[in-house]
């Protein structure tokens, strides 16, 4: 099944790659990011921590089990 997908999308990929050569770096992400690797790690940590904080706050909410008395 993958081969069928590839027939379509791989073909498209190779066509588009010729039009957009810039942006395809080496397979190794360390090499690809180069000296910005530290920034990448920092952004990943910031993103994950912020996501987890929001998720914790939302999941720890106690939903009301009855209608609020006043509006």
């Amino acid at each position, binding site marked *: *099944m*993958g*081969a*069928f*997908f*590839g*027939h*379509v*999308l*791989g*073909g*498209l*990929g*190779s*066509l*588009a*790659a010729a*039009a*957009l*050569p*810039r*942006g*395809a*770096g*080496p*397979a*190794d*992400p360390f090499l*690809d*990011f180069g000296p910005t690797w530290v920034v*990448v790690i920092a*952004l*990943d940590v910031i*993103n*994950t921590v*912020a*996501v*987890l904080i*929001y*998720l914790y*706050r*939302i*999941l720890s*909410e106690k*939903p*009301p*089990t*009855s*209608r*609020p008395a*006043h*509006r």
Partner: protein
Amino acid sequence: MGEWSLHWRRNKVLSTAWSAWFVNYLDRTKTAALLPLIAASLSMNSAETGQVLFFFFIGYALIQPVAGFMTDKLGPKKTLAITIAAFSVFTWTMAIVSTWQQLELRNLLFGIAEGFEVTAGSRLTATWFPQRTRGRAFGIHQTAYTIGSIIVPFIAVPIAQATGSWRWSFMIIAFFGLPVLAAIHHYIADRPELDSRVSEPELEYIFGKEELASKTGESDPALAHSVAELPPGERITPYREIFLNKNVALMFVAGFFGLFATWGLTTWLPTIGFRQLKLPLLLAGSLSSMVFFGSFCGVVLGGILSDTVFKTKRTPIWLFGGIVMAAATLWASTFRAGVPLGVAYLAFFIAGFAASCSPTGQLFAPYLAEILTPGAVGRSLGVVVLGGMLGSAVAQPVVAALVVQTAAGPDYSRALLAFAACGVIVSACCAGMLEPRVKRTYLGYLLSGGREGTWEPSSATSSAD
């Protein structure tokens, strides 16, 4: 001010659900937009590229029944938060892959993570909006997937070009989930009557005074035994009515063929434009954008027409959609090299417009809320979307098998004829669906000269006791 405050809370909930759906689509379609760069970077061959994409579809499809149950049991707010959090994290992990196998595994997890959004967003719209405006509200919700698909190349590709690496697009887009999580935290509540910020007039607008006074419970409609146990706007809907339901089964089949045609068409169209119509690559790619632009117009107009002209009937829009999509793709199957670009744009705009007028394009949340109950939208929609996503997955190999090699190059006419056949099947399924507003199928209603039928939900008698 008074009129605006009457709709204020509902509109905030809708805007947040819209943002979540928009970021979901932005995130998932960026992988396809960046695929040429990723494939070059990871030295992926055609089969590997195909497998990576297939794993997303399979993960997304198979999680749907679970997502539906989770939405109804855990609540749409928490489900929405979990999905946004999960795909935000999986997005940045995809930026640090070094082999296609790593990307494949992450794409599977990414598909699973993204799969929870549609049921949660749909359930919110179904619960927060009254029947008379539900079609329009859900139409607005559905514009998110069309806009996301149209603009993603203009976000993901420039970031990759500006930074020199596709990985930065993943890194940056991973942050788009944060403001959505903040909005979910501040604005979303599972049900309007449980939110202290909703005014009494707004509650009365949503449910009606009598409904609000008579139903004060909080039980799951699938488990409730009496009307008194129900929240407002709900009716008793046991599990057998949700899952052994002819209309849900027809939606599953219509979803399969509808998304087979939609995703088959949008995935293949650039190739058809380039190889068969001999268009430049950029113009060939723009044919898919026309499909999505047509879909944008379709979801907006379909919601308005359903609520106003058809007086909250939903199935007439779907009946029309399948047939018109069949006609448009039938027309497109006659296109050959040299077809005027304007004609091709028009045909694919109509195809996109009509394809959106299907049971997996629009109005599915209002329909399920009305044929069942808003509190069962998650579970029933999980079944319908499963059908649709399986159709999306199998569309690719089936269409590939329909390509005929000719002296002038590959010919895709048979694939377009297959999409036309899908349109006819979608309309046939919709013809058999009950239209709750007239208590019979819409065709039956038309053929009987506008006489309403006698359908009642199977639980109606017992709930009235």
